[in-house]
C-alpha cells in the first residue's frame, strides 16, 4: 500500500518536472541578433567589433578581475543558457570556473566541441609553450602556453578573423556585413598599431619587471624586455627571499618599471619600487579594467600612455 503511494508520488513528481520542461522552454531566441557570451572582456570587445549591431555580447569576467579566479555563479548560467556562441580564451585559463558553467548551462549549442563553442587561442600566436617535463614545481604553469595572448594587436587581428568566419558561418546572410566590419577593424587597428609602435619606439628594449606572466605577447610586440617577476612562480605569492633577489636583479640591470595587474596587491611592488627607485605602474590587461577602457583600441591607448609616463618619469 505504502509503496504504491510512494510510486504515485514519484510519478507525480516527474510528471510535474516534465510539465515544467514542456511549458517553460525559455524565451524564444531573440529575433535576429546573435547572443554571444565571452569568457573575458577582450574577446567581447573583439566580437563586438566584428558583430556590430547584429550581435549582443557580454563577458563573464570583468576587466579588472583575475581571469584565473572567476566564481562560477549561477547568475552566469542564466546568461549562458541563451547564448548562441561562447568565445573562450582557452589554454586552460578558465579551467577553474568555466567547465562547470558550460556543463550546467543546459545549452547544447555551447558545449565543448559544439558549433557555438569558439576557442580563440586556436587562432592566436601562443608564446611560452613549455617543453620537456612540466611540473607544478614551476607554479601554476599553463602546459598549453601563455593564455594572455590577446595583448598583442596582431593576435587581436587573428582572433577577429576567426570570429568573422564563425559569425559568417552562423549567419551567412550577414557575412558581407561581418566582412566589412572586419576590414574596417583591420584598417583601424593597423593605423592605431603604427601609432602605438611609434609611441613605444623610444623605449625599445627597455627592461621591465611584471607581477604575473601576463605580458609576454605585449612585450614582444612593443619590444620590451621582461627580466623578472614579482611572483616567484606563476600563482605563488611573493616571498621575501625572492623579492630580495628581484631587487638585486633590478638594481644590477637598471630596471626602472614594475608592471602590476589591477587585481594584485601593491604592497610588495611598492616596497620593490621604494628600494630600487623603480616606478610601479598598474597596467590594464583587459578591456574594462578602467571605466574609460571601453574597447580593444582604448586598452592599448591606456597601457601605452601609462608606460610612456612611467618610462619618462623613471629617466
Amino acid at each position, binding site marked *: 500500500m505504502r509503496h504504491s503511494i510512494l510510486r504515485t508520488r514519484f510519478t507525480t513528481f516527474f510528471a510535474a*518536472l516534465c510539465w515544467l520542461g514542456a511549458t517553460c522552454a525559455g524565451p524564444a531566441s531573440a529575433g535576429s541578433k546573435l547572443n554571444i557570451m565571452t569568457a573575458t572582456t577582450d574577446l567581447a570587445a573583439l566580437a563586438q567589433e566584428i558583430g556590430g549591431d547584429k550581435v549582443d555580447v557580454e563577458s563573464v569576467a570583468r576587466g579588472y578581475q583575475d581571469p584565473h579566479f572567476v566564481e562560477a555563479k549561477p547568475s552566469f548560467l542564466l546568461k549562458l543558457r541563451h547564448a548562441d556562441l561562447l568565445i573562450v580564451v582557452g589554454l586552460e585559463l578558465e579551467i577553474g570556473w568555466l567547465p562547470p558553467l558550460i556543463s550546467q548551462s543546459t545549452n547544447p549549442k555551447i558545449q565543448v566541441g559544439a558549433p557555438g563553442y569558439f576557442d580563440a587561442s586556436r587562432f592566436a600566436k601562443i608564446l611560452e609553450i613549455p617543453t620537456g617535463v612540466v611540473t607544478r614545481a614551476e607554479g601554476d604553469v599553463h602546459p598549453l602556453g601563455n593564455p594572455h595572448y590577446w595583448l598583442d594587436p596582431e593576435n587581436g587581428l587573428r582572433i577577429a578573423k576567426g570570429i568573422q*568566419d564563425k559569425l559568417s558561418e552562423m549567419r*551567412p546572410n550577414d557575412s558581407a556585413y561581418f566582412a566589412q566590419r572586419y576590414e574596417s577593424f583591420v584598417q583601424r587597428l593597423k593605423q592605431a598599431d603604427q601609432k602605438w609602435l611609434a609611441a613605444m619606439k623610444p623605449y625599445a628594449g627597455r627592461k621591465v619587471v611584471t607581477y604575473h606572466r601576463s605580458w609576454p605577447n605585449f612585450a614582444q610586440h612593443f619590444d620590451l624586455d621582461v627580466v623578472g617577476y614579482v611572483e616567484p612562480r606563476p600563482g605563488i605569492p611573493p616571498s621575501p627571499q625572492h623579492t630580495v633577489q628581484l631587487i638585486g636583479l633590478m638594481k644590477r640591470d637598471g630596471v626602472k618599471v614594475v608592471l602590476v595587474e589591477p587585481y594584485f596587491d601593491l604592497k610588495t611592488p611598492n616596497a620593490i619600487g621604494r628600494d630600487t627607485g623603480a616606478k610601479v605602474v598598474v597596467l590594464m590587461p583587459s578591456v574594462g579594467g578602467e571605466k574609460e577602457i571601453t574597447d580593444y583600441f582604448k586598452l592599448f591607448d591606456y597601457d601605452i600612455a601609462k608606460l610612456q609616463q612611467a618610462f619618462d618619469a623613471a629617466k
Partner: protein
Amino acid sequence: MKRFAVLSALLLFSSIAQAQDAPSAPVKRDVSPANTEDVRMKALEEQVRALAGDIALLRSELKELRETKSPEQPSSPQVLLASAHPEPGMVPSSPAPAPAQVAQTQTYGGATSNAKLLNPDISLIGDFIGTAGRNTVSPSRSLELHESEVGLQAIIDPYARADAFLSFGETGVNVEEGYITFTSLPAGLLLKVGKMRAEFGKVNTTHNHALPFIDRPLVTNSLVGGEDGIDDAGISLSRFLPAPKNWFFQGTAQVYRGDSGDLFTASRRQDASVVGHLRIYRDLGESTNLDLGASYARGHNTAGIGTTFDPSSFLTNLYAADATLRWKPLRRAIYHSFLFRTELFWSARDQLSPLAIFQTQHVFGLYSHAEYRLNRRWTLGGRFDRSGRATNAALTDTGFSGILTYWPSEFSQIRGQYRYGHLWDVPTDRFTNANEFLFQFLFVMGAHGAHPF
C-alpha cells in the same frame, strides 16, 4: 543542410577568389625578410587595395551563388592567417591553398590539439588528518591518511561528460561518485545517471577535501548519514525554473536505490528513496550574493527489520533549508572574501519506542559557519553545531569549532581546527565535554576539475 550550402558556397568562392588573387599573390610571396619596412608597407597597401576590389566582386558573386544554390562538395572551414609568415594586414580575406593552412594550424593551436590526447583529467587528492585531545563519544585515530580521492573526468561524446571519484580510505575503496551528465538535452534539462552525492543541502554535495572544515558538522553525522551522507546510485534530473528577472531558480528531482549508509536501507527493490531540491540564487551586487535552498529526502530505514512490523512501513523523511551569503570583491578576489552559511535539518524517523509502539521521532539540527579570507594565504573560520540524535530527540549534542587554513599554493592546504563538543555519552548516560585539536594536510596531484559553486 544550411551549413552544407554555406560550405559549398565557400568552396566555390575560394576557387574563384584564388583565380582572381593570382596577380597579387606574387607580391605577397616575394616579400623577403631582408626587405625594408617601407617596401613591405607599400606591398601591404597594394594588397589591401587589391583585396578591397576582390571583396566587392566576391560579394556580388556570393549573391549570385545564393540565388543559384549549386550543390558542391563541402570544404573544411577556412582558418585564419593562411600565409606562412602572418603579419597584420597580410591576412587574405580569400581562403588560401591547403598547404599553407596546414602550416597555420601547426604554428597556432597545435599544442591545444596535441597535448591532452584522449586521456581523462586524472587527479589524486590526499587528505591526511591528525587528532589530539579528548573525545570519549566519537574518538578518531591519532594520525591517518583519511582519504585519497582519485578523480577521473572527461567529456564522453558531444552529448555528455562523466565524472568518477574513487575514494581510497584506510579500510577499503569506495566509489564516492561515478556518473554521466547529459548536457545537451532539450527543454533545458540536465540529467545525471550513476552514483552521486544527493542534492540535499550544501554540505551533503561537498567532497571531503572541498569542505571548509576538517570534519563534517555534528548534524551531518547525527541526521544525514555521516561522512558519506546521502550518496547512492540513482538518476537526477534538474532544470532552471521560471523566475523573476535576475533571480535564479533551479529544481532538482532525484531517485535513488535507497541505500545510503545507515540512513536509508532498501530491503526490497521498490524501497527507492527520493530527493528534491530547490535552489534560489541572486546577486546582491558585483561582490555579494545570496544563495538559498530547500531540500527534501525520503527513504526507508532499518527500524522495522527484525520486528513483527512490516519493515517497509518504517520511513525517514528529511527536510532541510540552507542559506549562504558570500562576499568577494572582484578586484581583490584572491585576497579577501567572506562567507556565512547555515543549514537547518529536520528529521522525521519512523521507529519503535522502547515499549515497541510505532512512533515517529522528530529531530532538529543545524550548523552555522562563517569564514573570512585574511589574505592570499590565510583564512579564519568558525562553526557552531547543534543536533539531536536521529533516534532520540531528547539527546542534543552541541559544539563549536575554530578553523585556521593556510595555502602554500592552490594545490596544497594546511588546516588546524579546535573543536569543542558537549556530547551525550550513551554508556555513562550523561553529557561529557570533548576538547580536540585536529590538523589536516591536503595535496592535489594532476588536473582536478572545478567544483560547482
